[in-house]
């Protein structure tokens, strides 16, 4: 039983790996082609999320973990996103303004 389980592992590892390389190649192609900036940005957002998920699910075996093991990476990732967005009003949108503008 161990044997078969692990062999299934082998095939999926190789597929995941192939997927990762494929997505990377797509990323490089996308930025060298002549697409709009926003389109590239959205595309990269998708590929990065897909790659990270592939690694986490298969290489880090999150796929076969209990739900609360998922929480451990999910919560800080969520917090990170919230934190970065909370910085936008101050750091991103304020930066271009001069001191006089602020007053």
């Amino acid at each position, binding site marked *: 039983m*161990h*044997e078969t389980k*692990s062999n299934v*592992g*082998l095939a999926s*590892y*190789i597929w*995941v*790996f192939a997927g*990762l*390389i494929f997505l*990377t*190649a797509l*990323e*490089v192609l996308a*930025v*060298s082609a002549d697409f709009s900036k926003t389109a*590239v*940005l959205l595309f*990269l957002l998708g*590929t*990065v999320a897909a*790659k*990270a998920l592939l*690694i*986490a699910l*298969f*290489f*880090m075996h999150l796929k076969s*973990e*209990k739900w609360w*093991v998922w929480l*451990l*990476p999910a*919560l*800080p*990732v969520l*917090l*990170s996103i*919230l*934190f*970065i967005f*909370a*910085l*936008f*009003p*101050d*750091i*991103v*949108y*304020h*930066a*271009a303004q001069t001191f006089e503008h*602020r007053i």
Partner: protein
Amino acid sequence: MSGHGKESFISRFVFSTDHKVIAIQYLITGLLFLGFGGAMALLMRWQLAFPWQPIPFIGHLLFSSSGGFLVPEHYPMLFTMHGSIMVFFAITPILLGALGNYSIPLEIGAQDMAFPRLNMMSYGSLFLGSVLITISFFMPGGAAGSGWTIYTPLSSSTTTSIGWGQDLLILGLALDGVSLLMGGINYITTIVKLRARGMSLRRLPLTTWGLFFSAVLNTVWLPLVVAALIMVLCDRRLDTAFFTAGPLAPRGGGQALLYQHLFWGFGHPEVYILILPVWGLVGDLLSVFSRKPAFGYAATVISMSTISVLSGVVWGHHMFTSGMNPLVGKAFMFLTISISIPTAVFFLNWLATLWRGSIHFTTPMLFALGVVFVFAIGGLTGLYNAVQTIDVYIHDTYVVVGHFHYTLAASVLFGAFAFIYFWFPKIFGREMNSFLGKLHFWLSLVLLNAVFFPMILVGLRGHMRRIADATGYTFLQPVQNLNVWMGWAALFLVGSQLIFFINFIVSLFAGRKASSNPWNAASLAWTTSSPPPPENFEVVPSVYRGPHEYSAPGSGDRDWMTQSERGSSATTFAGKETAVSVPVTSGKLGIWVFLVSEIMLFTGFIGSYIVLRLGNPVKISGLQVLNIPLLAINTGVLLTSSLTMALSLRAVQMRDYVNLRRWLLLTAGLGSLFLMIKFFDYLHMWESGFTISSNLFGSCYYLLTGFHALHVLSGIVVILCLWFASRKPAFWTVAEGRVEGSGLYWHFIDIVWVILFAVLCLI
């Protein structure tokens, strides 16, 4: 005991992995620094009371070059080091280090922490940090002087008078941060995994709950400030400009406000990190010494957890006057004020615990009641600070200093004393003198109000914080007499702490021998001898009831029942409420908790890069400067190493140790190849003039990838260690856990690179 008797002094007391010994190391370190910080407070109060007058007795020793009195540069150094030392090297070691280490395993019925060696390293890291900050006083230019908040651009510029002392403080704090992270991983894993049979979550003492939440907050938020401090260090020594702008950053730069966000993103949770264990401890002590179960146990735990969550989203209340977006400020105001709801819940629970109890005014109980009293003042003054419109007036005045001394120097410190008086008999096997203890309490209570309440008064008159001499301002002349008053009161306050130190030292050697349960307490720690044997319990305990079984029917001639007593009363839930067995190994849980902190560390770096870059009017893209094909190939190399790492785990699972070693070696090889390519990439770019100080993008590129490369390097070292260890069949029994754990780390590094490749190189 006999086994331990043969060990040398060094291995028993210096390099010990016993949580009880490590707790004592933390306690002594914390108490020494408490004295040190107190002495600095006195120097400040002397200066404020009698500006520029020679300091009596010790002035010539300390400030011989200036003729025995302070010069203006000294004052910022004093408040900076006083604040940093008190928060990070006095209170934190005592409450998290000592109380956490000592109480957690004993209260949950474990033999030790989940990772005893990590625990030893955790203290080691704090020790190194404390050595660095001690040395920092003797650096040319003196100690750090930019406040405990280390605000940029003051702290990030080396052209100000602030010299190497500042760098050492930053390094010292970073080491303390590492120590706390290691501690956090240990505390969380221990509480989740090592609870004795029957110790369900609803039966944990409140102290343990407080320490648990505090450890969670540490693991999550501390990495942010570590990232920020590393960037400050780069700004200081590598000529980057993450946190400076304008004339200070001629090549275009970052933003000082970003530092404040990162600092307070951690800094606010930090105050809860300190006070949560105290709240828990007070909850337990009020119950023990009222001989009643803690009122509303579940509600208390739920409010503590609610507060822990909320504490992560209120940091902006420290920045109302920073020029931050007012709308954001408003959100922070409402969130902050909402914290008072759960706070009120457990506060009322405390009072209800006392209600009609049979109160025993022992020394620890007095200190616990003292916490209730001074925390009420601290908390209520906090509400004023939280209101945007009021804070505009009182920000940076002594109102704030008074407020946070009521919460930190009064509540948290009283909590620390309550801990020491309560646990001393268990830790050292002797009792402290209760007359001296009570004297210490009453003097401290009166005197600390005499010091800290006038702070609020002078603050309302407009007395600024962080000034060395108020007499120069006409509007402050009427309150100068209060400054003199606070000077005397502080002298007596610090002086009355000598009673504690004398009591502590004398009791250590000559105190009455303590029984195993001198307070008639019900939690597990009090069922074993004082001090406990090396493995904590003669017999591994089973738990049948909650931690506060006082005055329950059926306890016979005593008025309490310990958690491990089976008894026959109706309160026995055995069977119904056994500890959940958590289906994950300690090692794996520890690694995941570690990865949580790693995620937050990279959030600090990557998040800063994202907002700085989006906010920067100068648009630079990685596509223009970087060698994309080379970096893409390098991405392939790292991805391949993840595959080989996954295959080594598969080899272990198939008991194929020959291939395990091959895959491990290949993984380490690929990792090294990645680093080599990286190195040539750096070399090439540096030669073509693109350096870490070229511009904001260059700074971010080298910092982020460099930090990632360091992670790869440590991953390689770990994998090579595994490879080396796996020669021996003895290793094979533990191989799966080790390989899996290192694999999780390795794949995580891979994910970080996937993100870096996209955000740095492709956009």
